C-alpha cells in the first residue's frame, strides 16, 4: 500500500479558511513528486458540507472528523481528536497551514504522539540522491533558508506558511472523492480551557485596503518624532501612512495603521517601505501591492527579496530630497 499524505484543513464556523487550499495544493505537489496517496480532513462538529466542498478537488478521500467537543476550537480537544484519528489511519505525512490556530495545537499533538513538527515551511524538495524528502523553512527571520529532514517515524508533521503555495492552483478531481465521517470520542475532562467569543478590538477608523499609495514605516525610523518625515512623504505623494507592528506596539501610530498578519492586508499601486526588514508576518499584509519600493540600509534585508525597486541606504539621507523631488514633479 502506498504511503498517504493527509492534509488537515482549517474551518471556522462552517467556512473553510482559504489558506487550506494552499495546503491542499502543497499536498498535491508532494503527491505527484512521491507517488503517495493524498487525502484530506476537516475537523469540527457537523462539517460534512465542508468535506464535500474539498472532495471536489483532486484527492483520494476526505474525512470529516467530528465530535461535539470540536465545535469550538480548543487545543486540548483538537489534539485529542486528531491523535485518535491519526493513530487509526497512520498517514506518513500530515500537512497543515501555519495559522494561529494550528500553531496553538500542533506542537502538543505531535508531542503527545512522540513526533516532531517542521513548522512554517515555504517549500519541499527531494535531496540530491532523490531519497529523502526535505522541507524548506526560513531561519533568522528570513535571512536564511534551511532544508530540514525528519528523523522520526511517521506521522511526520509539517506546516506551511501562508502564501507558500498557490491556492488558486489546486487541481480539481475528475470526480468527487468519497467522504467518510469519523466520530471521535473526547471526554469532557480533556478540555481544560474555556474560550470565549472571538471579537475585534475597536472599529477601524481608517481603511487602508482602498489606498492606492501607502508609505509604511518600520523600526528603522528610530524615534517617534521621525514619523513626521514619513508623513510628509505620504502627504507629498497623496498617500496614506502605515507601519510595521513594532511602530504600532510603541504607540507611534495607531493600531489600525498596522500592516501584516495581525493587522491590515493591503494591495496598493505603490507600497513604499521605509526601514522595514520584511519579516514574513509583515510581508503577508502587503505582498499583493502592485509595486514595492524599499529603502533599507541593510542590503541583505529580506524586504529586498520582494521589492521591485530597491534603495540600499539611510532613509534619513534619501527621504528629504525625495519629498522635494515629488513636490517638484507634482507642481
Amino acid at each position, binding site marked *: 500500500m502506498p504511503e498517504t499524505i493527509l492534509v488537515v484543513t482549517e474551518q471556522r464556523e462552517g467556512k473553510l479558511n482559504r489558506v487550506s487550499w494552499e495546503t491542499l495544493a502543497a499536498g498535491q505537489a508532494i503527491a505527484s513528486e512521491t507517488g503517495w496517496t493524498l487525502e484530506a480532513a476537516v475537523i469540527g462538529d457537523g462539517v460534512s458540507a465542508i468535506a464535500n466542498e474539498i472532495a471536489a478537488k483532486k484527492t483520494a478521500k476526505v474525512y470529516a472528523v467530528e465530535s461535539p467537543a470540536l465545535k469550538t476550537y480548543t487545543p486540548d480537544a483538537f489534539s485529542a481528536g486528531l491523535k485518535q484519528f491519526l493513530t487509526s489511519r497512520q498517514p506518513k505525512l500530515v500537512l497543515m497551514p501555519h495559522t*494561529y490556530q494550528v*500553531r*496553538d495545537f500542533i*506542537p*502538543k499533538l*505531535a*508531542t503527545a504522539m512522540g513526533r*516532531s513538527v517542521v*513548522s512554517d515551511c515555504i517549500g519541499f524538495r527531494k535531496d540530491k540522491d532523490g531519497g529523502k524528502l526535505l522541507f524548506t*523553512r*526560513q*531561519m*533568522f527571520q528570513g*535571512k*536564511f*533558508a*534551511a*532544508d*530540514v*529532514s*525528519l*528523523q*522520526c517515524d511517521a506521522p511526520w508533521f509539517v506546516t506551511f506558511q501562508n502564501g507558500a503555495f498557490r491556492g488558486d492552483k489546486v487541481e480539481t478531481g475528475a470526480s468527487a472523492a468519497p467522504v467518510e465521517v469519523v466520530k471521535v470520542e473526547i471526554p469532557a475532562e480533556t478540555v*481544560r*480551557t*474555556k*474560550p*470565549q467569543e*472571538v*471579537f*475585534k*478590538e475597536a472599529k477601524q477608523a481608517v481603511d487602508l485596503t482602498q489606498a*492606492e*499609495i501607502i508609505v509604511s514605516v518600520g523600526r528603522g525610523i528610530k524615534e517617534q518624532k521621525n514619523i513626521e518625515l514619513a508623513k510628509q512623504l505620504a502627504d507629498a505623494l497623496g498617500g496614506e501612512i502605515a507601519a510595521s*507592528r*513594532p511602530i504600532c*506596539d510603541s504607540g507611534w501610530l495607531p493600531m489600525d495603521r498596522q500592516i501584516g498578519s*495581525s*493587522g491590515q*492586508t493591503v494591495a496598493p*499601486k*505603490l507600497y513604499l517601505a521605509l526601514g522595514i526588514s520584511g519579516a514574513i508576518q509583515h510581508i503577508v499584509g502587503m505582498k499583493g501591492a*502592485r*509595486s514595492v*519600493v524599499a529603502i533599507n540600509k541593510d542590503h*541583505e534585508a529580506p524586504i*529586498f*527579496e520582494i*521589492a*521591485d*525597486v*530597491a*534603495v540600499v541606504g539611510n532613509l534619513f*539621507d534619501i527621504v528629504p*530630497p*525625495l519629498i*522635494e*523631488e*515629488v513636490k517638484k*514633479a507634482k507642481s
Partner: protein
Amino acid sequence: MKILVCVKQVPQKDAPLKLNESGTWIREDVSYEVNEPDAFALEEALRQKEKHGGEVVAITAGPARAQQVLREALAKGADRAIHLEDPGFVGLDAFNTARAFAAAIKDEKFDLIFTGLQSDDYGFAQTGVILADLMGWPHATIIMQIEKSDGGIKVKRELEAGYFQFVEMPLPAVLTIQSGINKLRYATLIGIKQAKNKPLRKVTLAEVQSAIGANLQKIERMYIPQKTKKTEYLEGSPGEIAKKLVDKLRNEIRVL
C-alpha cells in the same frame, strides 16, 4: 504566583550573519541579545509578581555567553535563574529543549510558565506548547493580556487580522507571550548591582541527558534564499536616487 520565564539568547537584530563552514548554522562570533518576545514575557512575569506577589525565575539553555540574558533578567527584577549551560543546547530541536527544561525544573512547583511566542533564530514557535504537554498543563499562545480569575487565569489571545479572544483556564498553565503585550522596563543601576548576589543555578547537559534523545528533525543545509523577483537597485547620491525614484514613480509605477 510563582512564574518561570524561558528566555533565549539570539543574534542581535542587525548583526551581520555568516554561514558556518559546513553550511548548517551561522558562525557564532556575533553579538547577541535576548530574544524580543522573551523580553516581553519576562516583563509580564515581573508585572504579575508586582500585582500578586510570588517569585520570578528565569531559565535559559545555551553556552556560557547565554548567562548574559539571565543576568539581565535578574537585574530587571527576577529572583533567581537557572542556566542549562552547554554549547550543545544550541543545536537541540524544540522537543529536546522542552524536555531539557522539564527535567531541570522537575523538583520545582510553578504556577505559570511563560515563553516568548517564537524565537528570532529558529522560529519554531513550539517550545512553550511542547513544554505544556510534557508538564500535563493547559496552555494558550500569542497572549496579549493576563488577569487572575476565580480558580485560574483569563488571558487574551491574539488571532489573525486584528481579532482577539479571551480564554479562561486553571493553573498551573503555560502561556506564550506576544511582543507588545506591555512596555519593557530598563534595568536600574541598583538592580544590576543586586543581580550579582542573586542565585543562579547551573545545570549541565549530563544532568538532563537521560531526559532527552536524538533530535527528531535535522537541518541538512542552510543557505541564503534565492531571489525570485527581479529587483532594480537605484544607486547614486541621495539627490540622484530621489530623482531616479520619482522618474520611476511617474513613468513606470504611474502614481505621480
